[in-house]
């Protein structure tokens, strides 16, 4: 490679709740030079547009809004000798941890002792769920509408329908009502809401907004601007039920139909991705299949609470600093898989003989009287067991195994 290559101990890609926490902890764990690269002009990531409160309960022990959370974390970072570059983009990441960075200072290469991936996620779009119909203005992803309303003071429409009941969709339903926009209904294809129960109550029920489960938008109509959408019930296979269609006049359709970890750079570096999370396959150190490359926050798996993304960042940052200082894990790893009713378990890999590891998991469907078990695949031994009155797919849960484990594991959920 031509030209001088700059070096740093830990490079963090992304300055949101996970990346900032990773930078902080990398520094505190002894990394000499820590670099944070953020594409936007402000640190904080998506938190900047999440003006509602409910953040920080775990990290700051009080409930604050997204911007406050972001600023406090950015201030913590500013107190440390951490180099922060905003308005800078990592164009490429190689398996040997060379970053190609395009910033206001120009294009350059940086070789990092360890890299923390914290790029966050993107929203699924109309194209990705293939809604038929015309292509008029007035179709927004919920997060885009949130940006337009909260940061740019723009009115997105007058009468809206929301497809998908994820938290952003629910939050935006209330936000639109606050802006004087009529919300005609929220439609969710699954038989249960995608967002947290508290949000269903405080964002929909409070304002008399109907939530219809088992229904979806099957057509968008309108020439220049959305004029109506066609809503239909669905069968058990989630296919539209003929004869149940009805037309809902509206000029705006908001989509809250899922988030996808943004792993374009990870793929460039050769990081193995999981089809279940959309993020990297990691071990208990949050290290990916590429040595020295760690992953945390929404780029690893979708979180419902920003605080958990930050905690993951803290862990990844510490491990990255230790890797940069020369620490290498011992060889053999065991696999951890998701069994009955469990959508995914993370980390998916574990260094043999490690104990005291906490797993994150999500269930596939709401389960009442749930019994979560972590079982050894060879011995059948139950390493951990936890009971819940009920579990919802919208809630990321955790379970810890104290014992040192030396065999493949499976996590199951039974009623």
């Amino acid at each position, binding site marked *: 490679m031509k030209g001088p290559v700059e070096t740093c101990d830990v490079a963090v890609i992304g*300055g949101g709740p996970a990346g900032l926490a990773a930078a902080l902890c990398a520094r505190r764990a002894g990394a000499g030079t820590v670099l944070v690269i*953020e594409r*936007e*002009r*402000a*640190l904080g990531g998506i938190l*900047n*547009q999440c*003006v*509602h*409160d409910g953040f920080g309960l775990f990290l700051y022990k009080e409930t*604050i*809004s*997204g*911007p*406050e959370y*972001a*600023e406090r974390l*950015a*201030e913590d*970072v*500013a107190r440390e000798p951490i180099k*922060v570059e*905003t*308005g800078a983009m990592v164009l490429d990441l190689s398996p040997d941890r060379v970053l190609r960075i395009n910033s*206001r200072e120009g294009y350059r290469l940086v070789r990092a002792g360890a890299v923390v991936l914290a790029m966050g996620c993107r929203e699924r779009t109309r194209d990705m769920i293939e809604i038929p119909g015309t292509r008029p203005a007035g179709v927004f992803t919920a997060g885009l509408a949130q*940006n337009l309303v*909260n*940061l*740019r*003071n723009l009115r997105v429409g007058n009468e809206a329908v929301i497809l998908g009941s994820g938290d952003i969709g629910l939050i935006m339903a209330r*936000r639109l009502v*606050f802006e004087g926009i009529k919300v005609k209904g929220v439609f969710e294809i699954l038989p249960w809401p995608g967002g947290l*129960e*508290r949000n269903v*109550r*405080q964002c929909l029920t*409070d304002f008399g907004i109907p939530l219809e489960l088992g229904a979806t938008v099957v057509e968008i109509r309108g020439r220049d601007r959305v004029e109506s959408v066609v809503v239909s019930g669905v069968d058990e296979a989630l296919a539209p039920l003929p004869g149940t269609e009805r037309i809902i006049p509206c000029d705006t359709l908001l989509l809250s139909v899922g988030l996808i970890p943004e792993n374009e750079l990870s793929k460039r570096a050769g990081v193995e991705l999981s089809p279940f999370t959309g993020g990297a396959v990691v071990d208990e150190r949050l290290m990916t299949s590429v040595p020295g490359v760690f992953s945390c926050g929404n780029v690893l798996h979708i979180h419902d609470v920003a605080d958990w993304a930050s905690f993951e960042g803290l862990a990844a940052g510490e491990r990255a600093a230790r890797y940069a200082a020369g620490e290498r894990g011992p060889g053999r790893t065991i696999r951890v898989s998701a069994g009955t009713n469990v959508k995914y378990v993370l980390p998916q890999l574990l260094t043999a003989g490690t104990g005291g590891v906490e797993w994150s998991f999500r269930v596939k469907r709401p389960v009442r009287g749930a019994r979560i078990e972590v079982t050894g695949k060879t011995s059948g031994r139950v390493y951990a067991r936890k009971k819940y*009155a*009920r579990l919802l797919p919208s809630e990321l849960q955790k379970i810890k195994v104290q014992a040192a484990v030396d065999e493949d594991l499976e996590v199951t959920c039974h009623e």
Partner: protein
Amino acid sequence: MNERAFVDRLTCVLCPVGCELEIGRDAAGELRVEGHQCDKGVPFALEEILRPKRNLATSVPVRGTAAKMVSVRLSAPVPREMLFPVLAEIAKLRPEAPVRRGQVLLADVLGTGADVIATRHQGADSEERPSGARRSDSEPRS
């Protein structure tokens, strides 16, 4: 079990257990709560049914800047029926830059006891942020 009129069903959000509470009205017209596993559940349910309180968040334009907004919230929740009157008051606000996080933009809004506070720093267009990111401002990316 006595005959009771169903009033509402809610999930207690005070802790991660998330008890499912069912609120009914007994023959004497008194509210009854069931399903709580600790003694916080009953007052939580009664407040939610009788006097629900909510915080609210929005953003307002900042004077003296090109197109900047500052996000705001209430320092404490207010009775739910006050949400729209309070929003109407917030809509009139045009704070002058710079605005600091935690700055009270409107004290004791409509006598609720809650203040409208800024939830981020917003400098004048020329100003750098005093802390946090170097060289960053909070203008949304275009």
